[in-house]
Each structure stands twice: as structure tokens, then as C-alpha cells.
């Protein structure tokens, strides 16, 4: 499959060369038929886009024409055997036509209330941040060869201890630190079982999730009783940037929570760490071939411990943001599957920090949209909340191509 290019498959000359030449090398491997397919995907999206503010075409005909051309391109791609991107284009065009129909049928005022791109972007960043942190945790852990199904539980742990820490220390920073520690301890527990005791990582991760629901719920009832968390919890502050005058981008990024920026910075830092430092290479080598790494003097056990503990802290950071950076309270099982969406983001992002961020933004955008769609129909409001889960399911089924996990992912390492 030519579209599933991977950094590891790049020629050695490209790996050390400039990023530009690497990109060009990758693009050269995308077949012409695949380009047609991607064109079809783009046309499907444009068909929908032109019916939305600010363009607001009030007729269905241009959209239908665009979608029809897109379907034609999809047919070309499918004939040439580019199945995945071809079907992706078909889905995009059909969905684009339906979306355009919905937009043309609905009132302009409703559309303008829902589709405010800068507000949508800001909300998407907010919803994406917990996912980004947890997905980064997933990338670190899985790159070292440990599948971390327990992200959800570690996130929930972070969410509770973030609140508790902020409450006890009367400072949001205290909440962040205690949340990170608690997540790290959950990571340590997962490491003990999956690395030292060579447990089945999927089953022990599931156990972590159950334990986290029980422990946080238990402590929540014990400490806060039926009244819930206090209203005057210290909150993680927002960052104000004097860029409000820039249209769109400025409006979206003017005022965002501190942890949103931290998440974006962490993506860059982890990218550099994993792919540009010796320690990062060691971590990845343990996930690809632990025996070879061990032979070369790198301890897979120690590496995996570090990675899984870091993973727990990162996921917990997402939970801390959720509780004291976003909703400003804790409720039982409040992560509601976000850890698993993050896991899907890891897979969708091909085990790379940047890819995980892109996937998290996509899922975050769907959450942001789901929050605004009830304008159209208040009775179906609750149904829109299923959107991120359904989208994750579709993404998982893969419009982008089957991705390949690290070779030793999920396999316990046994020293001889």
C-alpha cells in the first residue's frame, strides 16, 4: 500500500537530510491514482464547506456538482486499485452532499450561530487537550513496547487527584503536581504487572481502569460526600495573548488555558525526544526489538518502566486539565471513554506525537461541534454527544490506511 508510508521505511539518506527532501520523498511514493482519491476527498469536503458561513451558498446545485466530480475521481482511484483512499473519497462526497443538503435546508441564523470557525477552533483545542495528553502518554508507552489500555483510568486518577490536590494545597499548581504523581503511581502499577510480572497488558490495563473507577469513586464519596467538589476550587489560569486583532487565528488563540499551550509544546518536545535524541532512539529500540536492545546494553525493563510511568503522568495531566482546567469539578467516571478515544488517536496518528495531535484535534472538533449542534434540534441534543465516539469508530476502521504498531508492542520481554 503506497499511502502508508512510514518514517522507518524512508531511505537512510532522507532520515538525516532536510525535512523538505524527506517530505518530497514521501510524496513521490504516493501513486497518481491515490492523488485522484485525495482530490475526491477534498471535493467532498469543499462541497460541504461552501454551504457554510462565511461563503453560504444557498443552493444545492454547486455542491452536488462538486460531489459528483469527486465521485468520478473516486471511481478513477478505485479502478486503479487504490481501495482505501477511493472509498474514503466516496464517503467524503456522499457525506459532503448530505451535509450541504442539511446546511441549505437550515436557516442562515442557525448556521451562523453554530459555525463560528474561530470559536469552533478554540473549543476544538479545549476538547482535544485531554485527548492529546493521554495520546502522548499512549505514544510513549507503546513506543517502548507496552500497550496502555489503562490510559482511561490514569486520566481519571489525574482528574480526581488534580481536584483533591488543588483543594488541599489551595493552589492549582499543587493540583497539577499531585495529579501527575498519582498518575505516575498508576503507571508504576501497570509497569509492575506488564513489565516485571509479564502480565497480559490488555487485561492488566483493563484492571487499571476498573481500579481507577473504584479508587477515585471511593475517595470522592469519602472526601466530598454527596455535595460534590467545592465551587471555589483553584483553577488553572488562562493565557492572554495580545493577538485578538488578527482575524480568525487571533480570535481563536487569544485566550486559551495554560495547559492547552503546554499540550502543544509537549507534542513538539516529545517528537524531538523520540526521533532526534539518543534516549528516544533507545526507547523506540526497546519497543521494536527488545532482545537486540538488551544485547546492545539498553535495559528493556528499565526503559519500559520509565516509559509507562511517564505515560501515566501524561494521561493524568489530561485528567488534571479536564477537572481543574476545563469543567472545574470532579464527578464519578468523568473521563467517559476519553482515554480510549486517545488510544484510537495513537493508532490513527501512527504512533507519532504529531499524528496523535492531529487525530486528537479531529476528535476534539467533533466534540466542539456536538456541543453546538443542539441549536438545530434540542430533543436530539444528547444524541449529538455520541458523535466523537462514532467518529472514532469510523476513523479506527481506517480511511487513512492500516497503521503498523511498534514490532514488540504488547509482548512482555523475558530475559534469558
Amino acid at each position, binding site marked *: 500500500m503506497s499511502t502508508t508510508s512510514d518514517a522507518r521505511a524512508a531511505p537512510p539518506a532522507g532520515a538525516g537530510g532536510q525535512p523538505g527532501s524527506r517530505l518530497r520523498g514521501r510524496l513521490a511514493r504516493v501513486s497518481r491514482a491515490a492523488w485522484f482519491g485525495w482530490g475526491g476527498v477534498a471535493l467532498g469536503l469543499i462541497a460541504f464547506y461552501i454551504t457554510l458561513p462565511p461563503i453560504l451558498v444557498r443552493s444545492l446545485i454547486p455542491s452536488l456538482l462538486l460531489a459528483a466530480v469527486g465521485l468520478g475521481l473516486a471511481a478513477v482511484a478505485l479502478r486503479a486499485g487504490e481501495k482505501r483512499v477511493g472509498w474514503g473519497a466516496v464517503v467524503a462526497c456522499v457525506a459532503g452532499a448530505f451535509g450541504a443538503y442539511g446546511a441549505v435546508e437550515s436557516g442562515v441564523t442557525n448556521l451562523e450561530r453554530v459555525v463560528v470557525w474561530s470559536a469552533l477552533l478554540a473549543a476544538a483545542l479545549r476538547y482535544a487537550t485531554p485527548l492529546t495528553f493521554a495520546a502522548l502518554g499512549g505514544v510513549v508507552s507503546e513506543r517502548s513496547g507496552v500497550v496502555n489500555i489503562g490510559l482511561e483510568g490514569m486520566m481519571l486518577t489525574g482528574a480526581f487527584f488534580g481536584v483533591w490536590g488543588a483543594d488541599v494545597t489551595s493552589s492549582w499548581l499543587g493540583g497539577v503536581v499531585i495529579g501527575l504523581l498519582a498518575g505516575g503511581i498508576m503507571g508504576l502499577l501497570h509497569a509492575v504487572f506488564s513489565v516485571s510480572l509479564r502480565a*497480559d497488558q490488555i487485561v492488566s490495563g483493563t484492571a487499571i481502569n476498573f481500579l481507577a473507577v473504584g479508587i477515585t469513586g471511593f475517595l470522592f464519596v469519602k472526601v466530598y460526600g454527596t455535595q460534590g467538589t467545592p465551587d471555589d476550587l483553584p483553577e488553572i489560569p488562562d493565557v492572554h495573548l495580545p493577538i485578538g486583532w488578527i482575524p480568525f487565528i487571533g480570535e481563536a488563540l487569544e485566550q486559551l488555558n495554560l495547559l492547552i499551550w503546554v499540550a502543544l509544546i509537549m507534542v513538539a518536545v516529545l517528537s524531538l525526544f523520540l526521533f532526534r535524541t539518543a534516549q528516544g532512539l533507545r526507547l523506540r529500540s526497546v519497543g521494536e526489538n527488545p532482545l537486540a536492545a538488551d544485547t546492545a546494553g539498553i535495559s528493556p525493563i528499565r526503559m519500559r518502566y520509565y516509559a509507562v510511568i511517564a505515560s501515566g503522568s501524561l494521561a493524568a495531566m489530561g485528567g488534571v486539565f479536564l477537572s481543574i482546567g476545563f469543567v472545574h469539578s470532579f464527578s464519578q467516571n468523568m473521563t467517559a471513554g476519553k482515554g480510549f478515544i486517545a488510544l484510537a488517536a495513537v493508532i490513527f496518528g501512527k504512533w507519532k506525537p504529531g499524528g496523535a495531535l492531529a487525530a486528537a484535534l479531529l476528535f476534539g472538533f467533533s466534540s466542539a461541534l456536538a456541543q453546538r449542534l443542539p441549536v438545530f434540534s434540542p430533543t436530539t441534543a444528547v*444524541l449529538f454527544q455520541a458523535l466523537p465516539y462514532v467518529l472514532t469508530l469510523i476513523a479506527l476502521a481506517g480511511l487513512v490506511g492500516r497503521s503498523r504498531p511498534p514490532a514488540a508492542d504488547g509482548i512482555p520481554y523475558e530475559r534469558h
Partner: protein
Amino acid sequence: VSIEPTGAGTITVASRLSGYLRGGGVVVPIVTALFAFLVGGLVVAAAGANPIDTYRAIFEGSGLNWLFPWVTGDDRTLAALNLQQTLILTAPLILTGLAVAFAFRAGLFNIGGQGQYLVGTFAGVYVGSSLDGTPALLHVVITILAACAAGAAWAGIAGVLKATTGANEVVSTIMLNWTAVYVGLYFFGLGGPLHSDDPAAQSIPVSEDVLESARLPVFWGDPELQGLHIGIFVALAVTALFWVLLNRSVTGYEVRAVGFNPDAAEYGGISAGRNYIKVMLICGLFAGMAGALDVLGWQFRIATNDIQVSQVGYLGIAVALLGRNTAFGTVIAALLFGALLNGTSVRNLDPTVFDPQLATNLTWIIQGLIVLFVSAPVLVTLLTRRRFIPRRKPMPKPEVMSGG
């Protein structure tokens, strides 16, 4: 449907846990459960309550003391009432446990029992509250079949995705769980399409009531006091079916072959993909039936609140793992968790001994601990090395060598 091989050196959950699955007989699950309860007791003590009193209260709340002949008089009457409730909760747990166990034997980890159970309750309450005038027995059968079909279809989504695109069934089934929750909240919420038409329920998010003709008959206890319905026999019959299907049928053979090594199974002419779909359909059928038993047996309606707090499907994971994915083990483990659920319920646990709200979370902790201990075969081997597992020649580890 084109099925690509799952890749070299595929190690399934089933094959990795085979040591636990085969070795150790009943000793390991018993020790696992005891250890989990021991740690749970420490948690109770840390919360400032007496663990022994708490466990005794939970035990008596579960009604299992009915089995002791020396419990007589009023105590016995109360124990019988409690035991009926425990068995009511046990029936769906057996089925959601089987839904996990069957998938496990095929190398799949079905965390989607909760969603499959929920859509089963949706279909059950919908069909059970419509079709007025259908003869009683027929109505029950149709409703159960509808719930099974709904559960199977829901699980089938994950099966088809796994077979055709290789989508990880753990993530896809979890996504289906949450989708089911929101679909249910929409269906039965205020203004939803299946919300009750009863004028008295206009401000309560609840479904229509299941008609008398679709309710399961009660055979032990007073129907007015939520006596034990025949669902437990249905669950036991399905357990027998599970055993036959798994151990005495071609399907079962193929399922187990795929579970141990999909590549070898493919080589032997067994399609892994087709089996993934088949297995998920069967699992969904079990979990959907669990939903039917609950709405036709004692709930008779769905409030949106129930949808959010229900954990029957998730408990099925612990039930299956503790029961070593066998028919008999699943029944016993389901009884344990049914007793635990009932014994820690608000109705049965004396708040002066231990707060039932804390106890609900204690159930999650015990459940987590059991799954955690089961996950590590090394622990199991340590427990059983001398007596149960015959010594084998040391083998090279092909899964490590084949990486890269």
C-alpha cells in the same frame, strides 16, 4: 470480504493467558478472589469501618446464608428474599460473562458487553411494551429474540470492522458502549422517540412499561415483592449451550483454533476473519439476552438513570476471567459478583456498618484487583508450579526473535 493475515508472530490474549486458562484447576481463581477480597478489606479498614463486620453484612445481604440449614425462622425468610435478588442479578452476569468468555476463546477481548447489554434492554423494552395482544409465551420469546438480535448486531459491528479492516476490537467495542449509552439517553429521554406516553411520566425520562404478556414468570417468592423469575434457568440453559458450542461443535473447534493462533488456523483453512464476525455475533447475542432478562424479569422499564449507572456488562469481564472462560466457572463467578452487587446495594447494606455508596466503589476495586491478578500468569505459575503444571522443555521465544 478480503481478509489479510494478522501479521507474523501474532500472539493472542488467549494464547498468552493459556497458562492461567489450563493450569491450576480451581485453586487459582479461589486464591485470586480471596486475595482481592483481602485487599478490599484493607480498603474498608482504611475507610474507618470494620472489614469483618462489613463482609458479614454484605454476605447476609446477599442471602447466601439461606444455604446454611441452621438459619431458621424470620432470618430464613429474609435470607430467601435476599437470595432471590442475588440470583436475579446473577442471571444477566452469567450471560455477559459468557459474552466475554466466548470472545476470549477466539482471541478477542470483548469489552463491549455493556453496550451489547444496553441495546438488548432497549430492544427488549421496546418489543416488550408493544405487540399488545400477543399470547404470553410467544411474546416473551419474540422479545428475547429481538434483544438477542440487537445485541448481536451491535457486537457484529466490531466483528466486521475487525475482520475487514483490522480495527482493534478493544477500542471499537468501547466506542460502541458509549454510543449505546447516548442512543439510550436519546431514546428514553424527555421528548425522545421511545419515551413513555403515560401522562404521569411526562417529566420523568423513562420508557413504556413492559406488558404483562412479555414478563417472565416468577417461580420462587412473591411476584409483588420481586421474586425470582425464570431468567436464571434461561441463563443456565445458555451456559450449557455455550459448553456444547465451544467443546463439541465445528464452530467451537474453529473458534479455539483461531484463538490460539490465527495464522496457523488460516494455514489450516479456517478463516480468522469470518470467525471474528461469527464470534462477535454470538457474544452480542449472549449480552443482548442478558438485557432482555433484566427488563422482562424485574425492571419492566428503563429510566435513563439506569443506563448511566449500569455496570453489568463490565462486570462480565471479571466474571469471565475469574471463571477461567469456562462454562461452569462463569456461573460460579457470576454468583459471586451477583452476591457482591446485591450485598452492597443501598437496599441491603446497613449504612451504619458501611456506606453503600462506598461499597459500590468497593465492588469496582475488587473487580479491578481480580482482573489485575488474573492478568499475570507469572503469579499463577508461582502459585501452581509444583503441583499442577508439568515441567516442559524450555522453548525459544519466537515472538521476540521475529520482531523487526
